[in-house]
């Protein structure tokens, strides 16, 4: 037996998925750049959608940066994460899609935007409380309730991100990149949600080592890269969402 075989395979270690590291770094850094640009744009336009998307992009930066810095994909496990890094960062899991969806709702109608922002905040807080209660170990099934809260926000947000851009006036491309991005986001969330729900009944996500989890972790970072790049191009690459930079004039496409 080779020594290499003797070393246990840690399904959570990012170093086991070498191709994904550069992609996650690009996602984190591009999201930071874009968050800053969107904030500059918000200061000029006072468009609330852009403020929510700013927080969304900064949330993406914090989330994926923490994944990389902790050298672990634990945060993707949400309420089932066992590390402090993972647990803290997992709080962004419902907030990121929620903020993007709320921004789109604001773009359509201010009342709808306000309602969806409140919904996202309440359910994210609910997720946080249930996650912490589950983490104390007093009632482990709270983890499942936390996961249901998380799935609810992620599912509704993904549907909004997929459906709302299609209803917007103007040419479909590249505006409908948001729809494509939303589909990839939905696929990522569904994959993780199935793992989380089954984990509740099978002794935790750790029991899934060597199963489907490593295949998913090999795929998920690529899906994440695709959906975030789609969001970036849809929001910044078109005039539909009103992105502006102070003292910059863009050449508008017909």
């Amino acid at each position, binding site marked *: 037996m*080779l*020594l*290499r075989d*003797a*070393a246990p395979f840690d399904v959570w270690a990012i*170093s086991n998925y*070498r*191709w994904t*590291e*550069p992609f996650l*770094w*690009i996602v984190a*850094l*591009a999201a930071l*750049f*874009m968050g800053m*640009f969107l904030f*500059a744009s918000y200061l000029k336009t006072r468009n609330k959608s852009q403020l929510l998307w700013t927080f969304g992009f900064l949330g993406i930066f914090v989330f994926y940066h923490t994944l*990389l*810095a*902790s*050298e672990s994909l634990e945060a993707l496990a949400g309420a089932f994460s066992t590390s402090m890094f993972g647990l803290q960062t997992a709080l962004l899991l419902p907030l990121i899609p929620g903020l993007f969806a709320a921004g789109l709702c604001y773009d359509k109608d201010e009342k709808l935007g306000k309602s969806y922002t409140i919904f996202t905040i309440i359910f994210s807080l609910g997720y946080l409380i249930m996650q912490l209660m589950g983490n104390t170990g007093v009632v482990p099934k709270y983890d499942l309730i936390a996961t249901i809260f998380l799935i609810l926000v992620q599912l509704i947000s993904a549907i909004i991100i997929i459906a709302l851009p299609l209803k917007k006036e103007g040419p479909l491309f*590249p505006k409908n990149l948001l729809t494509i991005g939303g589909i990839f986001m939905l696929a990522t969330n569904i994959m993780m949600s199935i793992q989380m729900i089954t984990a509740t009944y099978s002794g935790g996500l750790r029991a899934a080592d060597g199963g489907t989890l490593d295949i998913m972790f090999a795929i998920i970072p690529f899906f994440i890269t695709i959906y975030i*790049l789609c969001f*970036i*191009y849809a929001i*910044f*690459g*078109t*005039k539909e969402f009103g*992105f502006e*930079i*102070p*003292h*910059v*004039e*863009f*050449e*508008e*496409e017909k």
Partner: protein
Amino acid sequence: MKLKRNEFTTSFVVLALFAVTAALTLLSAYGAVCVTWDPKYSEPPFSMAFAYVMENLVVFRIANIITWLGALFWGYVIFAFLTQRKGAYIMALLTAIVSFAAGLVPALISDLSKVNEETPFSIGSPHWARTFANLLVIIVLLIPPVRRSVVKFASTENRFTGNIAKQLMMMSLFFFWLSMISFLGTNFMASAHVISGFNYWQLVEIQSLGAYTTSIIGVSMLGGGFILKHFKPANSLITSVEGNH
């Protein structure tokens, strides 16, 4: 000349890619320092584990020097893109090609050597990280719409052009980024070097030194930029309109 929105977006995503490639190249440069330059590694037991390095020491040393230079040169490439330097695109492509070659050769030597089959982790892998990152840059830069966007971006006048204060402040961010990566590297590289319960990672000194050096350079550039700004007031953030700054 004005930029289209998607050209602006593409260019900044590509600049993020350059910064990431610089960071991975720098981490890779740190990673090979002990084996390549520390005389301790030419004696047993290290010389047995790293026999393939000792046999190709000249190649590994040249690759390591190129890797260090490549990591820092990415900073100049970003600078060139933001300050309307001629040949910024070619410069980026050449840097990626040279860094790719300097990663590919040691990676192949490491992975093809027999010793790797008996070690608990693939020793060639750290070389692959920078090799893949630079390969990704080459591929991305050769995609026609991306090439058109970044070439146009590099030839468009912007707020950094001709203003030393702002150029200093902008490039300080690049050094802060390298510094942050070096500090973080001390965290996650240590955990990647545990073999049979023993941590073989030995680069805390050089990596910390690198982190402090890059942060001092960053602080000096930022400070210098602020001082110079008093003599030459700032103008708009980024402009593509001639005479607007």
